[in-house]
Every structure is written in structure tokens, then in C-alpha cells.
């Protein structure tokens, strides 16, 4: 019989292009210490630690969690290191939730990080070959296919780019602060990988995010109002084979369906109040809206066009500013979870959406082939 899992503390760093004011241990400790402070717990209250980050090639350290064990207060405890490419932050959260559900541990620290300023992420993403196309070059043909198939007008991508950057201005932890951003500026920014323009792309950030997970007994004693993990799901598929649809990956669809089944969600648009989706390139927002059943197939872009996904819209997406505003790659999936938790708790501050009872967090990795999804609720499942 599985234990219930709740989040009782969250923390994240101020995300920046280069956090040259802290070492790597300093960065992860900043997020972990904030999560502990939020939970009103100390390092000794933690039973196990799960660490996630994207490829070690980004910082040039093999399995860096071994040297981070001290900074994370992990000595004498179990420590796991997850790596599922871009989805890793959410996968790390889910691995932590499994430790709670198993009944083996009462309080788990799940933390994910990336300090991209230590190395060259484009080099790392390109299979450690020079002058690779980068992630944008990889995804651009699929985004073009989406546009061709749905007839979406080109300004949809610009709208997403502006919305997320304006949301980021309300989030004190966000990296990009583009106060003067406009649709015209996005449209005039250089074309990087058609149809993705410079201002439709995520930045490269340093950052970390952490969550403290506990069981039902721990939630009862928590300092914060616990936020319940109503569902977690992961799905993976091969990155390339004849017949694969990379625009609507089956793994993404299955992952959403599995999470909804666990949470008892049958009408996602009505039953979910806010979503933090992994959108490193603007056009992925309408695509994920469709994959998650929030919009009908081919209609995702219409929600964007109608302003439905704005902070004050009927279905806000990425009120934090999303990956388009902060992208410490390994941490980005965890930031989605942390922000979803804050929304359910009513603790998101200026970018809080009113009356959130249910929030969705999602991340993807690899060739849009690794998916990790979680549903958070105010009510105990």
C-alpha cells in the first residue's frame, strides 16, 4: 500500500546567465536551504536526497553529486542522481515522490540544478561536437510542421514569447527581465532556426530548485499548508524511427493520459487551473496544449491567439515566465514543479493565479522523447 506524497517546502535560486557569486555547491545549497527554511526543517530532518541535472558535459565534472554530497547534507544518507536530459528536473521530483510512496523514507530532498556558465551548453547539446545546430535546430523542423499542419499564423510564437517575458517580470527568481518586450521586437529579432527567432528562444541560465517531500504523517505536522502530489507519470520513446510523430509524440500523450487517470481528471481544460509546461521555444506552448488535451488537436494556437493562456486568462500557462525566461536546463523541470506547488499553495506572489486548486507541471527531454508530468492538488488524494 503506497504512502501519499505531499510537498511541504520549495526553494529556488535567483536564476541568472552567470551566478559567478557562488560556486556549484553554493548554488545548490541556496535552493536547498530555501526549501528547508520554507518547510521550517533542518538538514538533519532529511532522510534521503535525490539530485538531478542534465549532461555532466555542461560543467565538465563526472557525476558532480559525489562532491556535492557535503553541500547537500547527504552524508550518511541515500543519494540518487537522475539524468533524463531536459526532463530531468521533473524526473527528479518524481523519483523523490517514489521514495516517499515506497514507505522507506519520511522526508526527501529533491533538488535539480545546472550551472551552464561553467561550460558551453551548445557544445554539450550538440553531442560534444563543434558547431552543432543546437537544440533549436533540432526542433525547428517539427515546429514548422506544426505550423503547416494547423495553419497557425506566425505571430502566435511572438505572443507566447511576449507573454512569458511579461510574466517573468512578476517573478523575482526569473532570469530574463525584458520590461520593454513587444510583439514587434520579437518579430524583428534575428531568425535563428526558422521559425524560431532569437526572442522566441530560451536563455542559458545558472540555477537550482528544490522541493521537500513527505508522507501523510509528515504533511500533518508541516509548517506550510501541504500540497498533494495527485499524480506523477513518466513516458519515454525512441528518438527516431519510421512512423514516429515528433510533433505529437505518443510518449507525451500517454504521459498526460496516465497522469490524468491517476488524478481522476477527465476534462483537463476545466479541471486544471494553471499549467507550468516546458516551453523552451515559443511554438511548443500550442503543441503541448494539444498534447495535454487542454486544446483540441489543431486548436492550441487559437488559445494563444485569444489570450486564454495569459496570466489573467481562463487557462494560464507559465505564469512564472517559464523556460523562455529561465533555463538552467537540469533544474527547469523542477522549477515547473516548484512553481505549480506555489500556485496551489497561493504562494506565488505577483504571478499568483486566483483560486488554484489543481496545477499541472510537465517537462520533456531528448528528441522530445522523454516526458515527466505531475499533478498537484490542494486536497489530499
Amino acid at each position, binding site marked *: 500500500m503506497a504512502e501519499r506524497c505531499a510537498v511541504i517546502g520549495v526553494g529556488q535560486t535567483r536564476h541568472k546567465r552567470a551566478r559567478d557569486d557562488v560556486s556549484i555547491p553554493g548554488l545548490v545549497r541556496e535552493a536547498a536551504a530555501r526549501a528547508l527554511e520554507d518547510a521550517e526543517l533542518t538538514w538533519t530532518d532529511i532522510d534521503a536526497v535525490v539530485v538531478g541535472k542534465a549532461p555532466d558535459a555542461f560543467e565538465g565534472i563526472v557525476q558532480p553529486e559525489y562532491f556535492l554530497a557535503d553541500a547537500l547534507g547527504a552524508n550518511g544518507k541515500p543519494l540518487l542522481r537522475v539524468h533524463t536530459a531536459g526532463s530531468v528536473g521533473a524526473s527528479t521530483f518524481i523519483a523523490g515522490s517514489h521514495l516517499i510512496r515506497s*514507505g522507506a523514507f519520511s522526508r526527501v530532498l529533491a533538488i535539480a540544478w545546472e550551472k551552464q556558465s561553467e561550460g558551453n551548453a551548445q557544445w554539450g547539446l550538440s553531442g560534444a561536437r563543434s558547431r552543432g545546430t543546437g537544440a533549436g535546430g533540432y526542433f525547428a523542423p517539427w515546429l514548422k510542421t506544426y505550423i503547416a499542419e494547423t495553419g497557425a499564423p506566425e505571430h502566435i510564437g511572438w505572443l507566447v514569447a511576449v507573454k512569458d517575458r511579461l510574466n517573468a517580470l512578476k517573478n523575482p527568481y526569473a532570469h530574463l527581465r525584458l520590461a520593454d518586450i513587444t510583439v514587434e521586437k520579437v518579430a524583428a529579432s534575428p531568425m535563428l532556426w526558422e521559425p524560431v527567432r532569437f526572442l522566441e528562444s530560451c536563455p542559458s541560465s545558472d540555477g537550482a530548485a528544490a522541493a521537500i517531500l513527505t508522507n501523510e504523517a509528515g504533511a500533518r505536522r508541516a509548517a506550510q499548508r501541504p500540497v498533494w502530489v495527485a499524480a506523477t507519470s513518466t513516458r519515454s520513446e525512441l528518438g527516431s524511427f519510421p512512423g514516429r510523430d515528433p510533433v505529437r509524440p505518443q510518449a507525451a500523450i500517454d504521459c498526460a493520459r496516465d497522469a490524468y487517470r491517476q488524478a481522476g481528471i477527465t476534462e483537463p481544460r476545466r479541471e486544471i487551473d494553471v499549467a507550468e509546461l516546458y516551453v523552451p521555444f515559443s511554438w511548443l506552448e500550442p503543441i503541448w496544449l494539444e498534447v495535454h488535451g487542454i486544446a483540441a488537436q489543431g486548436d492550441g494556437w487559437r488559445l494563444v491567439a485569444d489570450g486564454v493562456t495569459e496570466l489573467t486568462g481562463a487557462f494560464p500557462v507559465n505564469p512564472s515566465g517559464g523556460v523562455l525566461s529561465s533555463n538552467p536546463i537540469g533544474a527547469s523541470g523542477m522549477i515547473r514543479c516548484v512553481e505549480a506547488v506555489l500556485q496551489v499553495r497561493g504562494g506565488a506572489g505577483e504571478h499568483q493565479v486566483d483560486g488554484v486548486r489543481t496545477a499541472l507541471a510537465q517537462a520533456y527531454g531528448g528528441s522530445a522523447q522523454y516526458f515527466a508530468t505531475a499533478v498537484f492538488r490542494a486536497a489530499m488524494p
Partner: protein
Amino acid sequence: MPASDIAIVGYAQSPIAATSASEVQLLLPVVRDALAMAGLGYGEVGFTCSGSCDYLTGGPFAFLFNLEAVRAWPPIEESHLEMDGAWALYEAWIRLQGGDIDTALVMGSGKSSSSRPADVWTLQGDPYYLAPLGVDPLSLAGLQARALIDAGKATERDFAEVAVRSRRNAASNPHIGAHVGPHVGAHVGPHLGAAGELSVAAALGSEYVRAPLRAHDLAPFSDGAAAVVLARGDRARSLCERPVWIRGIDHRIEPHLPGFRDITSSASTSLAARQAGYHGGPVDVAELCAVSSPQELILRAALGLPADTLVNPSGGPLAGNPVIATGLIRIIEAASRIMNGSADRALAHAAGGQLLQQNLVCLLEGELWPNGVP
């Protein structure tokens, strides 16, 4: 408390040797064979978890390609750890506790021959204090051996006896092949080979590689892969005549810098063993992830193994060490002896980091519980 009725019902390991095959080519047959042993088809597994290390392949996202080996289509529920496959088994064991699935597939793979291990593993050190010193794993092993001698806990002859027994045991291990190393990128002195007869006197007469360690005291860097199938309760009994029950499994980590801990003992191994439910008592077989002969002595003491326990009957890592799969292979070697009836109770150990920084202990049993219900 986690359930203790999760069992190993299938497994397979590749030849442990240098190969031109890719990591996914190493994994394809072991996944096929482990599933066949359990009588499960691709797609019939509830959860899949793999352990691999990008730096061995020399590029990011090595594990993405390893998905080919499990035929991840239709999509599967899956995770990946940048750790030895033994920890992937741990994560699968944790996932099975959720109660909604009853089978899991675990993989571990490592291909050291395509990189220079002495360079790669030096980059595992703290990037501010340790890595800049260029301390490679063999030098660290030498420091540990020296500390053990200085503490009066062992002699060079003790080391040689461990190595001689490992080589003798390895001679009957069908998986052991030709190795890379043992000192890739830092070759010093003659390579004595990992398997076959060697006398203690001859061993002690050979040159030092890193004093006080000689070639036979150090594990080679090998290529290899392994896969394990887990199942719960009645499902395990239906899939396997003699399931190998995981009575307990736990892992613990210690401070990173060697100067911050006692490297002549292994506190985290002792703790993990207790947490896994081993408090002494008879153990038929122990498979220990000792990558130097002194480490076997340290681990025996840390676990408190009885004198009559058969240690590393496979030859252990000194005979074959496909890093990142070595720990999972220890679990397979221990489980295989329970499965074939030659053992009833076994301990398997896996390690991560340098000088036993992180240790996993798994307590395996073959017998059914008295009333048939755990």
C-alpha cells in the same frame, strides 16, 4: 516499511572484455536474455530503469541510445540514473513498492575502452580542490592501501592473497574475457592478466604500479552490460521456480574528500548493511565491488562477514570491471548462486565515487517464508 517480497526472476550479463561493440549493442542481448529467463516479452514490463555514464561514451545523453535495447515503443515508463546499474535496481525496487505494477527491468552498462579511464575518473574529483591535482583512481587506491598498512590493518601479502584468490575464481567465470588495462592511460609495469594461476610469492615479486599496489591488486577497466528483471510476490513465484528475494536494500554516501573520512574502513557500507537488514549471521556468498584488493578487506570488515562466507566467487571486479555495470553484476552473481541452489543467503555490494564514497548493500535470500507469505 517497504515490502520485502520483491524478487529477482531473470538476469543476464555480457562478456566482460574490451569490445568494438557500442553500449547499446552490449545491452541488446542481455535485455533479450534477462526477459527470456523471466518469461516476459518486451512491453510486458511495468517500469524500466537504466544506469549509465555519459563520460564513458564521451558525449551527452548516452542513455537515449540505450533505449533501443528495450524497444521503447509503444512508449514505456522509464527512468535513468547517472550511476551504476545497482542503483537503477534500487530505484526499480522503490518504484515497485508503489503497488500498482508488479514487474520491472533494470539495466547497467559501461564501455571504458572508448575513453581513457585515468583521465575520465580524475574529473570526478571536486573541481576546486581535488581534480586540479590530477589524482587518478589508481593513485587514490594506492593512498588507501598505504593507509591500511600504516593502520596495521593489512599487509602487502594480505593484498596478494585476495588477488590470487580472485584470479583463481575468475578462471571458472565464463563471462571474463580480455581486458582493457588495468592501467589505461597510466600504464606502468607489466600487466599480469586478470585470470589464471598466480602464486602469492610471484605476485609479491612483481613491480609496483602505485606502491604498495601491484598490477594484480587493481581492477581492470572493462566493457560490459547487465540486465535484471524484478517481480513482486505471486507474480515472481509464477515467473520463476526459485525467485531470489530482495530482503533488504539500502545505500549510503560519505564525505567526498578522502581526507574527510577514514579510508581504512567503510562506515557507509556498515550503515547500508544494517539498513538493509543484515546484522551479522550466516551468509553463503558475498559479491563485493572492490576495485582494489585492499578494498575487499575493508568491505569484509565493514560488513562483518563470517569467516566461512564465500567472497567474490565470480572473481569480483579484480577480474572484470565494466564500470557502471560492475555493481549490478555483483547482484547478478550473488543471485545466480541462490537461483541455482548453491546458496540460500547472499550479500551483494556496489560502490560509487572514489575510494568507496558511496555504497549499496543488498540482502538476498532464496528460501520461502515459513507460511509462504512474506
